[in-house]
């Protein structure tokens, strides 16, 4: 369970986040959705202690992220930001290997290698594992980073728009993989999603952020309605019955 209590972050008098108080349930996938600049990524990076809060507390699995030593947190939660760039020349497998750092401090054991192989296979990167990151497409690189985060083998996984740069097939594959990781391995996955329909289909819980505050939080069935989505995204949205559940349609904008 991830608990945010009165969390605030100030950038300027006009731009501020919070106070946010919300509970993200343990287990399953929680999707953070909302318009641009709503504060989804900021919230996620604060939960992942990559960004400090100005006030309030954040607890992940009962551990205060501001007080727990970072190396202990690294075994509890893994976090991936949207923009990732590595200057060093690494192969996919070497990058994924860094996910084991919290456990083995860089001295990879056979068990670590097995975890790395699992994560690579899980994301369908087996044939690419010897390639250098600068030889990959944006989408392939994105998957390599997700594999690194999965290799970290933590109960909590935080991902900031992991579907960026991915084509349909790989976006769907990645979400299916994450769904499996949540269901089969019992992980808690918090994910910032741009596409409301991915959130509606794969998430167990949707948390809508707008103007630096959590405006709605609940199961997809509660969020995927005309009124709620129109209010969250400030543009007319109609929810129709698709073949696999509700579908938000918003392309016409009137």
């Amino acid at each position, binding site marked *: 369970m991830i608990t945010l209590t009165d969390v605030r972050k100030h950038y300027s008098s006009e731009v501020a986040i919070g106070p946010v108080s919300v509970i993200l349930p343990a287990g399953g996938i929680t999707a953070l959705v909302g318009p641009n600049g709503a504060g989804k990524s900021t919230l996620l*990076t604060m939960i*992942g*202690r*990559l960004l*400090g809060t100005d006030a309030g507390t954040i607890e992940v699995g009962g551990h205060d992220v501001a007080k727990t030593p*970072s*190396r*202990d*947190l*690294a*075994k509890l939660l*893994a*976090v*991936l*930001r949207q923009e*990732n*760039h*590595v*200057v*060093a*020349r*690494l*192969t996919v*497998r*070497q990058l*994924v*290997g*860094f*996910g*084991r*750092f*919290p456990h083995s*401090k*860089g*001295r*990879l054991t*056979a068990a*670590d*290698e097995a975890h*790395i*192989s699992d994560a690579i296979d899980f994301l369908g990167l087996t044939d690419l*594992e*010897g390639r250098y990151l*600068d030889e990959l497409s944006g989408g392939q690189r994105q998957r390599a980073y997700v594999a690194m*985060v999965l290799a*970290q083998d933590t109960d909590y996984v935080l991902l900031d728009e992991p579907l960026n740069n991915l084509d349909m097939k790989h976006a769907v594959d990645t979400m299916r993989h994450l769904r499996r990781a949540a269901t089969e391995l019992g992980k808690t996955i918090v994910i910032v999603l741009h596409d409301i329909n991915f959130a509606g289909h794969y998430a167990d819980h949707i948390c809508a952020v707008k103007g630096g505050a959590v405006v709605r939080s609940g199961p997809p069935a509660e969020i995927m309605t005309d009124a709620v989505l129109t209010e969250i995204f400030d543009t007319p949205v109609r929810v129709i019955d698709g073949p696999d559940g509700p579908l938000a349609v918003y392309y016409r904008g009137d």
Partner: protein
Amino acid sequence: MAELAGTARPTRTAHALPTRRARRRYALTVGILAVTAIAITVVLLAWDNPMPFGSAGFLRIAELRTTGVIVMAVVACCQGVGTVAFQTVTENRILTPSIMGFEALYVAVQTTAVYVLGTAGVLALQGVGQFLLQVALMVGFALLLYGWLLSGRRGDLQVTLLVGIVIGGGLGSVSAFMQRLLTPSEFDVLSARLFGSVSNADAALLPVAVPLAAVALVLLWSRSRRLNVVALGRDAATALGLRHRRELILTLTLVSVLMAVSTALVGPLTFLGFLVATLAYQFAGTADHRYVFPVVALTGFVVLAGAYVVMKHVFDAQGVVSIIIEFVGGAVFLLILLRKGRL
């Protein structure tokens, strides 16, 4: 790591040198560099030795020349390892730690001494005490800068670097102004100190310089695995449980010790670190610091001592190595860039 020799399928490993071929290539590279380094050392000690080979006089002369070799080894390790570590924590492959104002500070100290004391000023700066003072001054300057700019809530590396460059530029122009006011003979004496030159170094400094450099080198080496993670960037390193800012300040402090020792010993060698770091990444074939550090130290020695041999025996201009390093080094650098299209 699990090594299954003889099996058809290669073992899957995230090791820095994953295949047998990569390991062989690395071993070969280190071997060639080591042999070249030894060959150059032999040339330095034995070439042009007026006494018959093996005689007591021969050994005596070789012994005297050992100082120069040790100085070059210390400088090569300091500049090479220091630059690689610096480029890692700054996530930038075209920076060199000398831009952080170390060299400008050195130039300012030397110039001020000559400005105030005349030609005697150069002599006033020689000696173990003065050496330590200069090192302390440079490290202190770096610590102040990092401590002030990186420990704040909004500690920003890019701003720190920029401030370092600006302060370096300021010190440089103050030095240039003082140099304009010197008499030609004073300026002549001073300019000899401002070229990076092995003959600047004094044997009496080595008992202090070597341990100082060795401690910093061993500490950096022992942190290689952490540096590998730091190279992933602030967010990824934090996510993997490193206290990024602490690593940053610690590494920069060690780098400043290395750069201060090297600069106080032989003077400014702006380009050497950058050149050998660039070459070492190419030679090592991996980004893992445990493998890059030995290669960069050896490459540094080969480049520095090689330049010294050329200057001494071809151009008969002893010691002033920075000229040839910058000329040949620049050419090699451009060649690599054009051929490979990346750093």
